[in-house]
């Protein structure tokens, strides 16, 4: 497990200090769409310079290294308890090396644990048993600014005229983007879950960010809705950091779950432009990062 600690430490470092290639490309394209000399272009220029500086100097892109969301797929023979302990050790080390900000605050006393560890729910670790002998770790770092602007709607919602259908989902998503303004650190990404109960819907919306954001839902009408929400969100003119411009949302992905007859939840998770996602595969003693 000591070797695995080192691999996980490297996964955390990479995830905190670099952006996935497609996210950086999306930001470059967004800058091209903004007018020359505009505030939006200026902000996207600073964002891109910051990404390059963080990568070159191995510095966290954003000081809010967020909640650590680990998704672990493991063979049957591997102990979840040991994996959990190993992840925790890697987090402790990563915090001491300043790849992570100490972020775990006791809700009652206000005390910061200093090492990003706090009880059974901090960090958040999800396990799934798979066949074969490969261990796979997916990591999402999600900051508090974008987490705070996430929203859940119970349809029908008369305030926004949203019924229990895909057009109601569209209306909820656009309302959430309007309410968020620049506070989620736009330009952002939307992960939307339709259905589920309240808790499952929130979790599924967040897990959308593990998907390839350039892809689309296999159901063509949901795929069309993903594109339409992105297009219409950008018509709101909120722009980078909410200071105006064409780029508010870079991509939208939707997941549809089963629901109770009585419930029709639409949950919108917002990911800031600093969309920090990393993967590690360990097989036959070899580690591969992507």
């Amino acid at each position, binding site marked *: 497990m000591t070797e695995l600690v080192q691999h996980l430490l490297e996964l955390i470092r990479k995830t905190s200090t670099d952006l996935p290639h497609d996210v950086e490309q999306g930001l470059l394209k967004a800058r091209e769409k903004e007018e020359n000399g505009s*505030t939006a272009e*200026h*902000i996207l220029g*600073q*964002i891109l*310079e*910051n990404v390059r*500086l*963080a990568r070159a*100097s191995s*510095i*966290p*892109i*954003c*000081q*809010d*290294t967020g909640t650590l969301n680990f998704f672990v797929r493991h063979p049957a023979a591997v102990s979840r308890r040991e994996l959990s302990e190993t992840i925790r050790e890697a987090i402790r080390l990563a915090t001491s090396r*300043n790849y*992570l*900000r*100490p*972020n775990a*605050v006791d809700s009652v006393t*206000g*005390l*910061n644990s*200093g090492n990003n560890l706090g009880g059974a729910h901090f960090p958040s670790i999800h396990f799934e048993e798979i066949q074969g002998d490969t261990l796979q770790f997916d990591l999402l770092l999600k*900051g*508090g*600014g974008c987490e*705070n602007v996430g929203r859940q709607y119970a349809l029908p919602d008369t305030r*926004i*005229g949203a019924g229990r259908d895909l057009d109601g989902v569209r*209306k909820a998503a*656009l*309302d959430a983007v*309007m309410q968020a*303004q*620049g*506070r989620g*650190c736009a330009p952002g990404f939307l992960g939307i879950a339709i259905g589920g109960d309240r808790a499952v819907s929130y979790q599924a919306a967040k897990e959308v960010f593990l998907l390839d954001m350039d892809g689309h839902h296999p159901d063509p009408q949901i795929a069309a809705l993903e594109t339409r929400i992105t297009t*219409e969100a950008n*018509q*709101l*003119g*909120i*722009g980078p*950091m*909410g*200071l*105006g411009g064409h780029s508010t949302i870079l991509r939208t992905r939707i997941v549809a779950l089963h629901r109770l007859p009585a419930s029709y939840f639409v949950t919108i998770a917002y990911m*800031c*432009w*600093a969309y920090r996602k990393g993967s590690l595969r360990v097989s036959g003693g070899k580690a591969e990062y992507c």
Partner: protein
Amino acid sequence: MPISLTLPFTSSDVNALQLGDMVSISGDLLTGRDQAHKWLYEQICRGSDHRDKEDAHVLDAIQPILQDGLIYHCGPIVSGHETGNYRFISAGPTTSMRQEPYQSAIMRHFKMKGVIGKGGMGEKTLNACKTLPAVYFHAVGGAAALAARAVIEVLNVYKLEFGLPEALWHIRVVDFPAIVTIDAHGNSLHDEIQTRSKSVLESLL
């Protein structure tokens, strides 16, 4: 070219600033976020006769930094905790709106000239900016490596018991980049964008 501003500011410095102005700030300032604002507000409400000795000492120490100065809404990553030889590693702005209940009272108490944060603030802060005068400066959220590069020295730290991100850090910055989004004349770029986006949303619903 951005407008160069050096702390402490004068009233004419901030009165001259307009929405959308790019600025480059140099000088000494204080970071503070959620626990710091709540604590400062409570100290102000309590009054000088009812503070405990240690808190009174901190308030006296930060008074000269804040008068004609700025609070930066920031919870940094800081190295050197073991040695006390602190350095800012990554230090972008945090969402300012959470300080809205406290900010205006703090600004008035310390006779501040503004705040740096992200996402804008509400009516109470806007009114404080108008009467003091003061300005809200917007830094680019997430651009934290870049922001930390502008922090050349950590001069002191107060209320470390709030934890590293929430302590009040006395820092020296050079050419810290920001944009004016609430001016000293009652204008808010955030209000303008929100109003416009709201009317577009109504047409899309």
